[in-house]
């Protein structure tokens, strides 16, 4: 995608939605707009932009939607939850004495599907936990979305994306046209408002941090700072999970990959500042 087209999209989304995208997000813009190009039978992103700028409001709305959608769903992407069940929890259980709680942080929990999915998974793994207490902490920058998470109320569409029917029957009740997750599940999650740019030192130490599909909205230096803070907040043998399109590569040297699964990130101790030789 050429620089003029990138700049055209950046200016359009800034004007339309006030969203700040930078040229280094070209991959993100292309990934989000390519399906719209195909569905609208446009020849290119350039043509899509021309149609929007000439007053096609439907296309304009589709572009805004494509570049701003920040959705979540139960057991999103499935694989991170498989790794949680098969690698992260078993490794932590083998290292932690039974009396020590395992602390998990969902750092951008949106409307709550991620922490609630973890609770449902942990219930299935109860025998493996050997009586260990597992704390689930879940934060988001938006108070509105946290209110939705705490209410645990989802529409029919939301409970059909990723959630097996047997879990729907086990954990939800019908409330009008919506579905409400058990309050026992909601109470097991500590929801709190948090901006990832804030100082994380008061949050304590976590064993697992899920920070998925949020860092794509930040520029590289900011991502580096957030990664450094998360590395500082993780136990030395803890884990970080990112979204499928996210990576620490080229952004930070504070993480390495798990030997069994490169999607799982392990914190590295902060490098000591080089000693300055003195006479």
């Amino acid at each position, binding site marked *: 995608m050429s620089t003029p087209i990138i700049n055209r999209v950046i200016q359009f989304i800034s004007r339309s939605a006030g969203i700040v995208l930078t040229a280094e997000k070209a991959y993100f813009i292309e990934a989000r707009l390519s399906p719209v190009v195909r569905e609208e039978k446009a020849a290119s992103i350039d043509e899509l932009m021309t149609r929007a700028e000439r007053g096609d409001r439907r296309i304009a709305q589709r572009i805004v939607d494509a570049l701003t959608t920040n959705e979540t769903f139960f057991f999103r992407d499935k694989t991170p939850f498989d790794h949680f069940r098969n690698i992260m929890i078993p490794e932590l259980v083998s290292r932690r004495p039974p009396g020590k709680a395992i602390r998990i942080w969902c750092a951008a929990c949106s409307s709550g599907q991620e922490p609630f999915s973890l609770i449902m998974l942990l219930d299935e793994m109860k025998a493996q936990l050997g009586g260990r207490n597992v704390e689930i902490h879940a934060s988001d920058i938006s108070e509105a979305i946290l209110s939705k998470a705490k209410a645990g109320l989802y529409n029919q569409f939301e409970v*059909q994306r990723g959630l097996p029917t047997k879990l729907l029957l086990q954990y939800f009740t019908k409330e009008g046209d919506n579905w409400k997750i058990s309050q026992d599940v909601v109470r097991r999650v500590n929801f709190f408002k948090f901006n990832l740019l804030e100082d994380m030192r008061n949050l304590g130490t976590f064993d697992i941090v899920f920070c998925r599909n949020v860092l794509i909205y930040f520029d590289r230096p900011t991502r580096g700072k957030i990664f450094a803070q998360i590395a500082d907040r993780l136990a030395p043998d803890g884990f970080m999970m990112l979204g499928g399109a996210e990576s620490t590569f080229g952004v930070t040297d504070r993480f390495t990959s798990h030997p069994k699964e490169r999607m799982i990130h392990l914190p590295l101790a902060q490098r000591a500042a080089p000693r300055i030789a003195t006479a």
Partner: protein
Amino acid sequence: MKYCLVVDDSSVIRKVARRILEGLDFEIAEAEDGMQAMDSCSSRMPDAILLDWNMPNMDGYEFLTKLRKMSGGNRPKVVFCTTENDIGHIAKAMDSGADEYVMKPFDKEILSSKFGEVGLV
């Protein structure tokens, strides 16, 4: 290529489901009710069945009960797909041998998710 039987008395629903499932690499056959679906399964047992509940002649629940008693009738993954969206209907469908349950209206994401749950996507 997996073979899926779409059973619904609405030609519109069958058409929409066919388009979505063909996009997920399924070969599709259609039936308008449970009776036609029984005939279809007798001649060729599908890998998956997307099954409506309320239909003339034989409804989805009766069809599923009979299917599971047929030779080879335990093999297809059955995904109910119906406007019935109360817990009682869903529990009844799952207890009678359905593998998953879709509440109408549905879209590609939902069908893809549900067929993924039963290991076919």
